[in-house]
């Protein structure tokens, strides 16, 4: 089974992919902070912030459909909240858009504002993760003083996601091949719990063998990493562009 949906585009070779992970992480963080901090009622100016992630998706050859799907998957909670919020009474506001003028409830404006901001920051995060292999992300985080214990941990986690998802996929397929009807919640749940239990046991077994493999290669609990990535000219250029873009937008629009 292939899990291309998880990291389909992170192995690309475009200019965006080659930018240092640290620069990308910090840029995403800066973008998110700026966007989240924007005024609560504004809507139209926000679209200018879309240009940034949009440019990155275009340059990195990431299909917009993929981005859209990612954002949709992450959206239910915030959309429910925002929509609920829009029913709350608040004072109305005059909105002018082109030749049209209308009175809109402030809470609806805020709701729209939050959803757009959510799309923006999610796009930025997708832009980061879709153009950076997970191992580079970890390198970046390590350089940014995230503890090495957590880094190595995350590395192992990411490595074995694919393996264990395969295992549960196999269990589910072989179960559905033999189950002919719904057996009632209690019975079905027990069967599924047994699947989870045996995946847990095999996870524990794998971790024991991985532990042996680590010891065999001289691992003594001290985590040593090889970081060869250096900030180059193009990374600085990228960082400068991002900063200038954000500062200029913020200065012009507000």
């Amino acid at each position, binding site marked *: 089974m292939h*899990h291309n949906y998880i*990291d389909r585009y992170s*192995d690309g070779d475009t200019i965006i992919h080659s930018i240092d992970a640290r620069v990308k992480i910090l840029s995403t963080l800066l973008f998110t902070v700026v966007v989240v901090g924007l005024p609560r009622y504004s809507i139209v100016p926000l679209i200018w912030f879309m240009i940034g992630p949009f440019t990155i998706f275009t340059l990195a050859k990431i299909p917009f459909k993929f981005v859209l799907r990612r954002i949709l998957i992450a959206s239910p909670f915030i959309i429910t909240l925002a929509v609920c919020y829009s029913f709350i009474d608040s004072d109305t506001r005059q909105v002018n858009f082109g030749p049209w003028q209308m009175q809109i409830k402030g809470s609806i404006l805020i709701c729209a504002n939050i959803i757009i901001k959510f799309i923006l920051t999610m796009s930025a995060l997708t832009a980061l993760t879709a153009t950076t*292999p*997970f*191992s580079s992300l*970890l390198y970046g985080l390590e350089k940014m003083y995230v503890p090495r214990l957590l880094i190595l941990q995350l*590395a*192992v986690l*990411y*490595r*074995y996601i*694919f*393996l264990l998802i395969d295992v549960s996929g196999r269990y589910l397929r072989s179960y559905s091949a033999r189950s002919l009807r719904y057996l009632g919640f209690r019975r079905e749940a027990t069967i599924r719990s047994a699947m989870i239990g045996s995946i847990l046991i095999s996870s524990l077994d*794998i971790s024991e*063998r*991985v532990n*042996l*493999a*680590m*010891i*065999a*290669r*001289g*691992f*003594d609990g*001290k985590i*040593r*990493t*090889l970081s*060869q990535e250096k900030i180059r000219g193009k990374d600085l250029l990228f960082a400068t562009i991002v900063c200038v873009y954000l500062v200029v937008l913020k200065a012009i629009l507000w």
Partner: protein
Amino acid sequence: MRISSCAKSNIMVIITAMTKIAVKIKDFSFKYPDATVALENINLDIAHKERVGIVGPNGAGKSTLLLAIGNFLKSQAPVEIDGMLSTKDNIKKIRQKLGVLFQNPNDQLFMPRLFDDVTFGPLNMGLSKEEVILRSKEALRSVGLLDKKDKQPHHLSAGEKRAAAIATVLAMKPEIITMDEPDSSLDPRSQNKLIELLNQMSQTLIIATCNVNFIARVCNKIVLMDSGKIIAIGNRKEILGNQELMNKHGLEVPAQLISDD
């Protein structure tokens, strides 16, 4: 032709017998916590540069023997690696001398990027950054995976995964390498590639497998095991060519040796 190759292997056996012992196991027994006996009275000497194949049916104790050689099992009897006992001071040296290839490459490739996996061992040896990179690249080149160094292990094929696992061991430049079923789940083409790679290697190799066709093309010295005991030790022809012995222990005579007769 046949005689000369046979003679050559005999000469090799004599020469290696005179050099220093790489692995020495004496009266080694091991029981698992649930009291099943895994190894019983194992006595085995392996010389440097020797290529030893450990064959036997499933559950014969081949993997456990490799774990014993790798100093992963706690037992009263000592296992000497290059004349060193596995004491606390020695264990680090032993880990550098002895590389272990586990049965499932997925257990051995535990990092999200191939290059990180290969550098893991050399980094733990405390080498300088330049040396680590040099060694890792060399190891990857020798298994033909240098161009895939930034790939994620789950994007590699089964054959590539096996080669990658070998590279992680080679990068530590060990003198002795134990391999647990390196041929398993490989298609014939990947198997041929693996055999080619193994035959180029100059290290002492200890390979456990139940694939006799594979082992006949790599190893000279064969150790036959069954139910935790060593049944016979001898050269390729003596053990693998012995129809009666092979059949008795659930194995078969490799095709290569049959056609020789």
